[in-house]
C-alpha cells in the first residue's frame, strides 16, 4: 500500500494538518526511537490506519507531575494524542466525568476492551495496612491496579514513582509504597518510563512504536526503552568538553558558572545517570536542567532518591578521572586520552549492567539510607 503512505489520518486531515507536518512528526518519532529512516513509511501507515486504541491513565500516590508533563507534549501536541490518535477514556485529572460516571467509564473499558487497551500508571502503590493510604471510589489502589492493568494489552509506568516507588517509597517508606511491577507482579507487556517526571517525547515515541508495531521497543533490564535510557547523560552533555578540559564551576554564580562550565563539583550526577534528557530536552526542546545551570539529580536512575542523594555532594569517584586532577596538571593530550578511557569504562559498566541477567528480587534491594541519622 505504497500510496497509503501519502495519506494522513482522517482526523488530522479534517482539521487541516498538512501532509508535510505529518511526515515531520513521523520522522521525529522515528528519530527519537533511534530507528532507521526507512521506518517512516511504516509509522505513517500505521498511524493512518490506527483505530484509535483505548488508553486509560491511572493515578495513585502521585503528584500529577507526569500528567502535567504529558500535557506539555509538543510532538504531537497532547490534543492529538487524546482526541485523534488514541481514545483517552479515563484520566482523573482531565476527564469530563466524575464519581460514578468516571468509575463506570473505567469499568466499561476493562469489560469491553479486555486485552486490547493500554494502561498508563502514574504514582506509587501503597501496600501497607490493607491499602488504606490510597483509595479511589472507595477501592484500594492496589486492587484497582490489579484489576485494570491485569487485563491491559500493554502497561506503561510513567515516572519514578510508578516504576520503583520513587519518592513515596524513599526511606522510611511510611506507606509500604511500591512500583507497579512489584505491587502487581507478572504483568505482561510492561514498560517503565523512569524520570521525575517522564519526558513526554519518549512516551510519545513509545506510544507511536506500539501503534506501529503492536509491540514495545527494545528494553533494558529494568524494562525501560533503550532508545531513551541506553546512554549516559555525562556522555551526551553539552558541558562535557569543559569536564574533559578540567573547567569546573567552583561556586554558584562564579565565572565558571557564567561561562557554562561543568557542574560536576557542584554535585552533578550526570556520570551515573542514564537518560536522553540532553538530546530530547524539555518543553518543546527548549532546555534541560544542566543547560539551565543546575546539576543533574539522576532522576531516571533506579531508586534515585535514596541512591543518588545527597544531591550536592560530589560523586566520590568517576572511573578513570579524578576531579581534582585538572587539565593544567595532566596536560591537554593526556586529558583527552583519560577522558576517552573513562567514557569507554562508564559505557562498559552501563552495558554490563544492562546485559546482567535479571534476578528475582533485583529491584527490591533496599538502597542504603542516605539520610543522616
Amino acid at each position, binding site marked *: 500500500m505504497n500510496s497509503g503512505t501519502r495519506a494522513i489520518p482522517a482526523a488530522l486531515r*479534517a*482539521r487541516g494538518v498538512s501532509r508535510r507536518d505529518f511526515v515531520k512528526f513521523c520522522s521525529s518519532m522515528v528519530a527519537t526511537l533511534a530507528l532507521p529512516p526507512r521506518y517512516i513509511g511504516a509509522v505513517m501507515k500505521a498511524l493512518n490506519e490506527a483505530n*484509535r486504541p*483505548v488508553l486509560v491513565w491511572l493515578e495513585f*500516590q*502521585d*503528584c*500529577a*507531575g507526569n500528567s*502535567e508533563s504529558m*500535557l*506539555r507534549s509538543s510532538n504531537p501536541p*497532547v*490534543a492529538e494524542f487524546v*482526541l485523534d490518535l488514541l*481514545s483517552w*477514556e479515563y484520566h*482523573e*485529572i*482531565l*476527564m*469530563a466525568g*466524575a464519581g460514578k460516571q468516571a468509575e*463506570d*467509564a473505567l469499568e466499561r473499558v476493562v469489560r469491553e476492551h479486555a486485552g486490547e487497551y493500554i494502561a498508563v500508571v502514574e504514582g506509587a502503590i501503597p501496600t501497607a*495496612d*490493607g491499602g*488504606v*493510604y*490510597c*483509595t*479511589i*471510589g*472507595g477501592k484500594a489502589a492496589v*486492587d484497582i491496579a490489579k484489576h485494570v492493568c491485569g487485563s491491559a494489552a500493554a502497561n506503561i509506568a510513567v515516572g519514578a514513582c510508578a516504576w520503583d516507588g520513587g519518592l*513515596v517509597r*524513599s526511606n*522510611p517508606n*511510611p506507606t509500604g*509504597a511500591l512500583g507497579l511491577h512489584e505491587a502487581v507482579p507478572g504483568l505482561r507487556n510492561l514498560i517503565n518510563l523512569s524520570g521525575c517526571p517522564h519526558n513526554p517525547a519518549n512516551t510519545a515515541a513509545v506510544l507511536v512504536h506500539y501503534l506501529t508495531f503492536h509491540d514495545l521497543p527494545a528494553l533494558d533490564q529494568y524494562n525501560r526503552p533503550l532508545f531513551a535510557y541506553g546512554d549516559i547523560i555525562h556522555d551526551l552533555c553539552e558541558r562535557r568538553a569543559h569536564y574533559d578540559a578540567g573547567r569546573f564551576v567552583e*561556586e*554558584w554564580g562564579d565565572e565558571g*558558572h*557564567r561561562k557554562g562550565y561543568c557542574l560536576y563539583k557542584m554535585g552533578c550526577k550526570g556520570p551515573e545517570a542514564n537518560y536522553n534528557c540532553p538530546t530530547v530536552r*524539555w*518543553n*518543546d526542546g*527548549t*532546555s534541560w*536542567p544542566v*543547560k*539551565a*545551570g*543546575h546539576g543533574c*539529580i539522576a532522576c531516571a536512575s533506579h531508586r534515585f*532518591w535514596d541512591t543518588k*542523594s545527597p544531591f*550536592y555532594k560530589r560523586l566520590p569517584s568517576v572511573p578513570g578521572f579524578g576531579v581534582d586532577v585538572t587539565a593544567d596538571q595532566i596536560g591537554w593530550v593526556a586529558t583527552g586520552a583519560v577522558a576517552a578511557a573513562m567514557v569507554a569504562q562508564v559505557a562498559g559498566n552501563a552495558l554490563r549492567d544492562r546485559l546482567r541477567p535479571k534476578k528475582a528480587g533485583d529491584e527490591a534491594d533496599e538502597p542504603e539510607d542516605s*539520610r*543522616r541519622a
Partner: protein
Amino acid sequence: MARIVVDPVTRIEGHLRIEAQVDAGMISDAWSSGTMFRGIELILRGRDPREAWIWAQRICGVCTMVHALASVNAVEDALGIEIPANAQLVRNIIAATQTIQDHVIHFYHLHALDWVDVVSSLKADPAKTSQLAQSISDWPLSSEKYFKGVQDRVKALVASKQLSLFGAGYWGHPAYHLPPEANLMAVAHYLEALQFQKQFIRIHAVLGGKNPHLQTFLVGGMATAMDPNEPGATINPERIDFLLEVAKSAQDFVNQVYIPDVLAVAAFYPDWFGRGEGLGNFMSYGGFPQGSIKDSANFFLPRGIILNRDLTTVHPVDTVNVSEYVSHSWYDYSSGDQSGKHPYDGETNPKYSGPKPPYEFLDVNEKYSWLKSPRYQDQPMEVGPLARLLIAYAAGQKDVQALVNAALAKLKAPATALFSTLGRIAARALETQLLAERLPGWVQQLGNNVAQGDVRIHNGEKWDPKSWPKSARGFGFFEAPRGSLGHWVEIEDAAIKNYQAVVPSTWNAGPRDARGQRGAYEAALLKTPVADPDRPLEILRTVHSFDPCLACAVHVVDAHGHAYARAHA
C-alpha cells in the same frame, strides 16, 4: 433525603471524595475527604536542608515549584540568608509564570466542562459562533471556517462513539445554560489553551531546565547564572529577549481569550454569584516580594485577613496563630485530639480508622480524611485567588480596585457577588490579568540588571554547613496559585530535624475541627441545589471553583520522634 458520593472528584490534582446530604433538592450538609497519603515530610527528616526543596517540590506536580520556593524561603529564614535582588526577580518571574499558567489550565481544562456542554457545540452555527467571538474579543482565531474545523473535530469524535476524555460528562444536564455557539467557542478555546500552556511554560524551561519539577532553586539564590556576554550563561541578553517575547504572549491570551470567556460564561450563570459562598473568612500571607522578603508592605500581592465578609478591615497575619487539628483526621495527637498544634510543635501519627476498602460511605461523625484542619486563631479560613483579591481590594490597592470594579460593572453585579462560586472564578481570572501585566516588567528589570553588569545570583556565604549554627528554625511562605502556603523547618547539626508544610488545599479542603466547624469546601457546598442526584454537576462547580490540589494537602510530620507505623512492605 439522600447521601451523594462523588469519588473520584475528577479534574483536580489528587484524590478527593465529597459526601453530601441532599434534602429537597438542596445540600444540607457536606464532608470533604482526602483519600491519599504519602508522608513526604517524614521522608525529609535527616536530609540536607539545602536539598529539601528538591524533595518538597514533589509534593505537587501541578503547582510544581511552589513548594520548592517555600522550602528555600524556610531554610533561608532559618539560617538568616539574604538573597541577591536578581534571585528574587527570577523567583518572581518563575512564580508568576506558574500562577498564570496554572490559572489558565484550571479554567479551561479543569473547570470549563462544568459550564460548557461539549456535545451541544455540535448544534452551533459556525457563522454565528464567529460573530459571537468577534463581538467579545479581537482574538484573531475567530473565523467561521475556524469554528467549523473545531466542530468537525468534535463531530468526528462523537461519530466514532469514542468520546475519549469527553466520554462520561454530564452532557444535556439541565444546569447547562450556554447556547450552542458559546459552547463551540469554549471548546475551541479549550484546545487553544492546551497549546498556550505548553508554549508559555517555556519560561520555566529556560530558567529551570524543565517543567514540571524545575531544577534551579538554591538555598541562597538561584542556579541561573547571569552574564551580559556569555552564551553559556542561563540568563544573558538573548534569553531575556526570548523570555520577554513569551511573557508578553500571556497578555494577549489572557486579555483576549481568558477574560472575555470568563465574563461571557458568567453572564449565563448569574445564579452562581449567589451560591457557594462559604466561610466568609479569607487569608493571604502575601507574595511576590519587590525588595526584601522581610518587607511585606512591598509585596505585589498583599498580606492580611478578612473576617466575616467585612471588607472595611484588613487584619494583620501572624503565623504564630496557625494551628492544625486532627479531630476528624486519620491521625492521633499525643496530647489528645481535641486541641490544635502549631506547625513547629506538630506531630503526625497516622492512624487510619475509616472503613476497610472497598467501602461505600465514610463514617463522617468520626475521622474521615487524610487532611488535617488548619485554623487561624481557631477560625477556619478560605485561601486562594479570591482571598488575595479581596484583601488587596479591601486594603485599597488601586489597580485591583479598578480591575474588580470594571468586571463587576460589566457583569452588573455588586461587590458582595464576589463571595460565591463565580466570584472565585472571576477573582482567579483577574489575578491572572494582574500578573500577566506585571510579568514583563520583572523580566525587563532582570534584563537591565544583567546589561549593567549586575550578575549577582547567589549568596554563598552560608552554603557550607560548617557556617551554620548547631540548631535553627525558619518559616517559608508563598502565595501559591491555590492560596497560602507555609513551610516550617527545624535544622539541627546540619540536617533536617523536623519539616512541616501547611498548604492551600488543606485550608480549603480540610475536614471539621474539634468544635465541628466546617472546612471551606464543606461550608461552600451548603444550600447548593442539586437537580439530579445521579449527576451532581452542581457539586463539581463549587468544589472546582477552589481549584483543589489534594496531593499538596495531605502531609505528615513527626516532630518528636514518636514511633511511627512502619510499612509492612
